[in-house]
C-alpha cells in the first residue's frame, strides 16, 4: 500500500517535471511545442551518448539540460519566432521537428532501445518498506526544480519581467524590456527542463527513438486538465493524470489504464476547457 502511494507520488513528480517545460512554453508563450517529447528523448540520449565516454551520471544530467536547452534556443530562433502569429503553423513546424529529431536519433544511435545503468543501486528502508534510492532522488530533484521554477517566476525581478512580457508584450517592450530575448530565454528554459527530465528518467525506462510520444500526450493532457497559463494548473493536472495512471495501474493492464485516463482527461478538458484551476 505504502509502495503504491510512493509510486503514485513518483509518477506525479516525473510527469509534472516533464510537463513543466511544456507548460512554461505553452502557458507563457501560447506556443504548442509538439517536439517536447523528442526534447525529453534527446535528454535521455545525451546521457546514453556521454555514458559511452564514461562521463559520470550527474555530469551527464547537467550536460543534457544544457545541450537540450541550447537546442531549444535554436528552435525558437529558427522556427517558433517566425510563426508566432500563426499558432497552427507552429504546431506543424514543431511536429515536423519531432520527426526530424526522431530520425536523426535513429541515424545516430540506431532504431533499437538502450538502457542506462542505475547510478544508485541501493534500496532505502522507510519503516517497513524498502524503496529504490534512485527513485527517491529523482522525486527530490523534481520537487526542487518545480518549486524553483515557481519561485523564480513569482519572487524574482527577472521572473516578474518575464511574466510582464508574456502578459502584455507591447507594454513591456515600451517599458524597455527586450521581448525577443525573453521569448528565446523562455523557450530555451522549457527545453532545458525537458532535457533534464529525459536525463533523470533515462535509468528508469528503456531509451528508444520512439519514446517521445509517450511523454508528449500525457504531459499535454495534464496541462489542459489543470489549466494552461498557471503553473499551479500543471501541478493539479499532473497530479490528476499521473496519480490516476499510477494508482489504476495497480488494478488494470497498462493499456486499459491509458485508455481510461486519456478518455477521462479528454472529458474533463471538454467540460472545463479553462482547466480545473481556473475560475
Amino acid at each position, binding site marked *: 500500500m505504502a509502495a503504491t502511494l510512493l509510486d503514485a507520488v513518483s509518477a506525479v513528480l516525473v510527469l509534472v517535471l516533464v510537463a513543466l517545460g511544456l507548460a512554461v512554453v505553452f502557458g507563457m508563450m501560447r506556443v*504548442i511545442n509538439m517536439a517536447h517529447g523528442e526534447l525529453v528523448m534527446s535528454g535521455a540520449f545525451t546521457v546514453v551518448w556521454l555514458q559511452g565516454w564514461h562521463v559520470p551520471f550527474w555530469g551527464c544530467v547537467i550536460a543534457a539540460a544544457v545541450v537540450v536547452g541550447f537546442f531549444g534556443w535554436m528552435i525558437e530562433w*529558427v*522556427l517558433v519566432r*517566425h*510563426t508566432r502569429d*500563426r*499558432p*497552427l*503553423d507552429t*504546431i*506543424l*513546424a514543431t*511536429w*515536423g*521537428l519531432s*520527426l*526530424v529529431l526522431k*530520425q*536523426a536519433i*535513429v*541515424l545516430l544511435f540506431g532504431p533499437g532501445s538502450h538502457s542506462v545503468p542505475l547510478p544508485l543501486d541501493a534500496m532505502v528502508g522507510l519503516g517497513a518498506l524498502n524503496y529504490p534510492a534512485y527513485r527517491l532522488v529523482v522525486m527530490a530533484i523534481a520537487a526542487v526544480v518545480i518549486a524553483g521554477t515557481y519561485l523564480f517566476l513569482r519572487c524574482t525581478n527577472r521572473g516578474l519581467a518575464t511574466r510582464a512580457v508574456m502578459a502584455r508584450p507591447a507594454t513591456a517592450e515600451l517599458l524597455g524590456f527586450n521581448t525577443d530575448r525573453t521569448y528565446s530565454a523562455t523557450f530555451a528554459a522549457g527545453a532545458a527542463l525537458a532535457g533534464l527530465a529525459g536525463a533523470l528518467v533515462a535509468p528508469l525506462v528503456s531509451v528508444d527513438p520512439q519514446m517521445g*510520444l509517450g511523454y508528449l*500526450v500525457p504531459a*499535454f*493532457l495534464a496541462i*489542459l486538465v489543470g489549466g494552461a497559463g498557471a503553473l499551479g494548473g500543471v501541478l493539479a493536472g499532473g497530479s490528476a493524470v499521473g496519480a490516476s495512471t499510477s494508482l489504476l495501474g495497480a488494478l488494470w*493492464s497498462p*493499456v*486499459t489504464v*491509458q*485508455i481510461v485516463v*486519456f*478518455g477521462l*482527461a*479528454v472529458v474533463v*478538458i*471538454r467540460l472545463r*476547457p479553462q482547466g480545473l484551476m481556473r475560475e
Partner: protein
Amino acid sequence: MIARVPLAISLAVFVALAALPWLAGDYWTGQFTRSLLYGLLALSLALVWGRGGMLCLGQGMFFGTGGYVMALLTMGKLGPGLADAWLALIVAAASAAALAAIVGVFVFWGASISGPYFAIVTLAIAVVLEQSIRSNYGLGGDNGLVGVPPLPLGTSAFDATPPYLLVLVVVAAAYFTLDATLSRRIGLVLDALRVNPNRLAYLGYSLFAWRVATFAAGGALAGLAGALFVAVDGFASPTLIGFGLSAEALIWVALGGRTVLMAALLGALAVRHGEALLAAWLGDWWLLALGSVFVLVAVAAPAGLLAAPLLWLGARVRR
C-alpha cells in the same frame, strides 16, 4: 474566396492517371491504387483542415474505422448475411462519418474546443483508439485482421487494373463533387468558418452545425478511403487508425497545399512515390529530409508547394 484549379487541369490529371495501367505495369498500378486512396484521405483532411480550419491531428482514426468496419463485414464476422462488399463500403463510410459526428458533437458543443486544444484532443482520441484496437484480440490485436476478401469485380485477383480503375473512379467522383460543392456558397461559408468564425455566427450561421457537418463529411471520405484500402491490401492493421498515418496525411496535405484540393491530392501521390523512388537512394535519410522540408514549408510556405504552380497553370489555361 480561394482560387480554384480549373476543370481542364483536374480532368487532365485524372485522364493521365487513367492511362497508367497501360504504361506502368502491374506493380506500379498496385502502388498507385494505394496512394490514390491515401490521396482521398488527404482530400478529407484538406476539407476539414484546409478549408474548415479544424486542424485534426487524428484524421487516420476515420480511415482506420472505415477499414476495420469493412474488414469485419466482408470477412463475415458480423454475420454472413452482411458480407456484401458494396453494402460494406457504404456501412464503413457511414460508420466513420458517425464517429466523426460523435467526436464533433462532443468537441464543438457549447463552449467549443477550438484551435490548438482541438488539435491535442483529436491526437489524444486517435492514440486511445489505436491502443484499444491493439489490445482487442477480437480485432486481431497488433496483427490486425488478415484475409480481407478483395473487391468482387469478377476478374482475377492478380490483375491490378480493375481495382485501380474502380478506385480512380471513386477518387475522381469524390474530387469533382467536393470541388463543385466548395465552389458554391458552401465553400464561402467554410472559408468564413476558418477565417472569421465570430462574424459568421453574427450573420446567423450555426458554427456548431457547420463544424460538425464538415467534420462528418471529412470522416465519411476518410472512412471510404480506408474501407477500399483494406479491400485492396487484404488486411486491416492498427497502424491505419493511429498516430503514424495521421501524421503522414498531415505532411501530404501541408506539402501539397492545404486549401487547394488538387494540391493536397497530388501532395499525397508525390510524397508516397517520392518515398518509393528516393528511399532506395537516400535510405534512412529520406525521413530526415521529408521532415525538414515539412518544417520549412510550415514556417516559410504555409500555402504548400504545389498550390501556387497549379493555380498559376490554371490562370494560364483560363486565358
